[in-house]
């Protein structure tokens, strides 16, 4: 109890100090009068047809930063995402090998019909968010997170039987996820490989042509901006995120006995 009290009073003192510092201008003007120089550079260059050796061919500045200007950062963040999902799957690794024979009928007919309609809408919104990520607010991460809600809903409303009947298995989802992550990696080095083969100079994570390297992803698809590699990154990230989350949701919603099997034969205590 005393420990809690000391901690709470410590937090209150820290808040008061931070409040005083913020109020006296510690964070500068709040909100700032103008964006930082680096941000206005990004905004100016992202779809500047006059400076095509520095542009990202994407009217959406956030996607341009995420997958072009700071693309390597995002690749490593994707690795963190990959690792977290992998760790979660490893903790229940035997669940994937146990074939589940369940006969759950799911919820009532009314809920099922409504869910069927809503699921279609969710998937449509997710696909539009991901595939138009370089034109409108959104991208692969958001689209994947939206799309993973659909299988979660289906699992709850239709029961796990629904997935088993349609042969949406653990290994298939894992394959989709691994393949899309591999393609994501390939997209980042595709121009480099092409450069090696054709004798041109290119960089890792190159999107549009630069002054010293003329290789480039196509900036347009039938007069609609494609964003070069941004479209492919968004697409593969969408698949990876959606299938990764679906995998973990499938495991978390397994039967209790299946999950308990994981601990069989283990000694007491970690």
């Amino acid at each position, binding site marked *: 109890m005393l420990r*809690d009290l000391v*901690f*709470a009073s410590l*937090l*209150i003192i820290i*808040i008061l100090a931070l*409040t005083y510092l*913020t*109020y006296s201008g510690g*964070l500068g*003007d*709040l*909100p*700032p*009068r*103008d*964006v*930082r120089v680096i*941000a*206005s550079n*990004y*905004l*100016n260059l*992202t*779809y500047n*047809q*006059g400076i095509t050796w520095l542009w990202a061919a994407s*009217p*959406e*500045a*956030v996607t341009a*930063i*995420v997958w072009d200007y*700071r693309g390597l950062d*995002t690749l490593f*963040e994707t690795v*963190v*995402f990959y690792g*977290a*999902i992998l*760790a*979660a799957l490893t*903790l*229940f690794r035997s669940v994937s090998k146990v074939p589940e024979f369940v006969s759950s009928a799911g919820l009532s007919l009314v809920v099922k019909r409504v869910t069927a309609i809503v699921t279609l809408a969710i998937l449509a919104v997710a696909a539009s968010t991901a595939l138009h990520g370089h034109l*409108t*607010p959104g*991208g692969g*991460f958001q689209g994947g*997170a939206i799309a993973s809600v659909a299988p979660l809903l289906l699992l709850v409303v239709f029961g796990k039987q629904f997935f088993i009947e349609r042969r949406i298995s653990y290994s298939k989802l894992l394959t989709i996820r691994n393949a899309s992550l591999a393609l994501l990696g390939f997209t980042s080095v595709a121009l480099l490989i092409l450069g090696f083969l054709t004798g041109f100079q290119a960089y890792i994570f190159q999107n549009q042509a630069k002054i010293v390297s003329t290789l480039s992803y196509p900036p347009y698809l039938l007069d609609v*901006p494609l964003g070069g590699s941004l479209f492919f990154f968004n697409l593969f990230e969408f698949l990876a*995120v959606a299938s*990764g*989350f679906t995998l*973990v949701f499938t495991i978390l919603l397994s039967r209790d006995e299946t*999950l*308990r099997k*994981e*601990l069989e034969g283990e000694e007491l*205590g*970690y």
Partner: protein
Amino acid sequence: MDIELIKFMFMLTTISLYFNVAISLYGVVSKTNLVKKLIALTIFQDTVNMFTILIGYKLWRPGLLLQPPVLTDLSPTSETLREFVERSVDPLPQAFVLTAVVIGLAVTLFLTTIILHVSYHFKTVNVDEIGRSKRVYIHEEAV
């Protein structure tokens, strides 16, 4: 609308976010239930993300229309680009938060599976009880 009022509201929001951080940290440290710790941790994550978005915002002034960092004109002239840079809010914090949210969700799922494991193993999610049962076991082993 008055600019001073907007500034005051921003200050208020910032300070309320400090309170949010403090409350969620208190939850992470002092709650003994692992699930409650996890909930406090997600509140902490979201507060920090919110804070990051907030500092990328821009002060509204009369005659200035703020817009998200998305160019709507697909064949922009230098005039439209200048206007876009003037109107748009900072895209950089949004780009940081974007990945942080998904990684946060993945880490939350990972922690959920760990807590599930712990609850099956120890038949409780109370950290004090888990610590006690481990101590008993170690004592038995020593004897």
